[in-house]
């Protein structure tokens, strides 16, 4: 064990909570964040000088204010490095980072690491999902939070999950309500799951607030409806919508898609709480339970680490209950919104980076290994390194894509020149 700092990767709610908890216990912390400010996707801060147009529910604002207060109290023990992208762990245990401002990769050997890199959105592919004008709902939301400006022109929001409502309501708030919100699931047909959700308090209140906002802007919320195709038409997208057996077409400038979130685990080291350099995961990057749970989970990881270092620290039963409640909510949501997936048409792109279609995926041998899927199929070989096509392939083939072993780095593409300028904290 070294005397170096504990590394916390990711400055969202989980990472900030973990960093504050560790620093409060007296440990030095190195907190790295890929963007220029902490907050994560949920608390994405407006660019300086922009008014804060997008107001989160009060609960989230209070939570973030409390976290930032704790971080500033313990600021002496926390080194924050922004614009710094985690590149993974090399074969000799170095944690690697792309310092975008310095245009240089640096390596460090922390005493322990808590990785809290959040979630990525899941996308169910359809012909045209790769077109310009199609964005993830979460991606559009992050941009909206930064600038307060909604994308211009007609917008359609489609897919599944509560984020659709949040984004649509925020677009309306910012002055460009979407033409419709399409929810693939049919929540009204799952009253048991809805009743379960009703017990969760805050979230349902939040959802109802969004629905009210949409109603006020006359934005239809259509359930059991999904996008089956998008194609360019002039500077618009012609979007085909299927509701049961009926089809209709809308023309929009932006199509925002989203089918839930999953932990961002591509290339992330496996948790190893008992290793010489313990590695723990926290927040949506461990289990996608949402922002409230992420704060609890960051603290849980910090406490687990402190216990590992011989400190008598534990999470409180109330915190453990909070995590279980969040899990129950996610389970109920999944049940309420469940919709069977039909295989997409053969021409549907699966890997956008390499331009590989579902037909080409289906042509691979049934028992193809991950290596064959990559090398022969050329799936997951592109710049996104399988972050989007990996989950699609897993869903379409009905089994997870085995990860490359050992984990590959860099887990994000990195400037060759920056990597050549590698610095390490070692005396070699």
């Amino acid at each position, binding site marked *: 064990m070294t005397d170096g700092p504990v590394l916390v990767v990711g400055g969202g709610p989980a990472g900030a909570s973990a960093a504050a908890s560790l620093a409060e216990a007296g440990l030095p912390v190195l907190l790295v964040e890929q963007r220029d400010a902490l907050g994560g996707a949920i608390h994405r801060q407006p660019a300086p000088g922009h008014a804060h147009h997008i107001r989160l529910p009060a609960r989230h604002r209070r939570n973030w204010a409390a976290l930032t207060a704790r971080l500033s109290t313990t600021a002496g023990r926390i080194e924050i490095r922004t614009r710094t992208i985690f590149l993974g762990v090399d074969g000799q245990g170095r944690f690697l980072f792309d310092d*975008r401002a310095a245009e240089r990769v640096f390596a460090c050997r922390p005493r322990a690491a808590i990785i809290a890199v959040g979630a990525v959105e899941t996308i169910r592919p359809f012909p045209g999902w790769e077109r310009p004008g199609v964005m993830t709902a979460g991606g559009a939301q992050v941009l909206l939070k930064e*600038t307060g*400006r909604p994308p211009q022109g007609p917008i359609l929001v489609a897919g599944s999950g509560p984020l659709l409502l949040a984004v649509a309501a925020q677009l309306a708030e910012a002055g460009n309500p979407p033409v419709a919100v399409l929810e693939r699931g049919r929540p009204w047909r799952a009253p048991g799951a809805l009743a379960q959700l009703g017990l969760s308090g805050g979230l349902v209140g939040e959802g109802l607030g969004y629905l009210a906002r949409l109603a006020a802007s006359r934005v239809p919320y259509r359930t059991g409806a999904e996008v089956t195709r998008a194609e360019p038409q002039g500077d618009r997208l012609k979007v085909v919508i299927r509701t049961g057996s009926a089809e209709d077409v809308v023309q929009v400038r932006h199509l925002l898609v989203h089918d839930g979130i999953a932990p961002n685990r591509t290339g992330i080291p496996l948790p190893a709480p008992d290793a010489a350099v313990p590695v723990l995961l926290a927040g949506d990057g461990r289990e996608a339970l949402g922002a409230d749970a992420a704060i609890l989970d960051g603290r849980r990881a910090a406490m687990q680490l402190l216990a590992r270092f011989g400190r008598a620290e534990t999470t409180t039963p109330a915190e453990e209950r909070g995590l279980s409640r969040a899990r129950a909510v996610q389970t109920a949501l999944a049940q309420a919104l469940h919709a069977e997936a039909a295989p997409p048409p053969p021409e549907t792109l699966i890997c*956008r980076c390499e331009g590989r279609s579902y037909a080409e995926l289906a042509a691979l041998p049934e028992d193809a290994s991950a290596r064959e899927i990559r090398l022969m199929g050329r799936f997951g070989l592109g710049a996104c390194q399988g972050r989007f096509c990996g989950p699609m392939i897993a869903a379409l083939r009905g089994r997870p894509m085995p990860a490359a072993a050992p984990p590959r780095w860099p887990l994000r*593409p990195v400037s060759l020149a*920056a990597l050549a300028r590698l610095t390490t904290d070692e005396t070699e």
Partner: protein
Amino acid sequence: MTAHFYWNGEPVPFRPGETIAAALLGAGIVHLGRGRIFCGIGACQGCLVAMTGAAAVEACLTPARNGLRLSPLAEEQADHD
């Protein structure tokens, strides 16, 4: 003139602190060559833009800077299909 960078030689205004992606979208630019702004968090690599003399960067992660000369990845550099 306000702060601006160049996209295909045309000035695109931005407010300090904005990302390249936010400024492009604000200017109504959706087509980044064959790329596009998609995930907003650096994961999908769809919004790569070329910067003269340096490696491509994700528009959604990179703060806009005054005078930057940016362009879509050359057709030949974009991922083919």
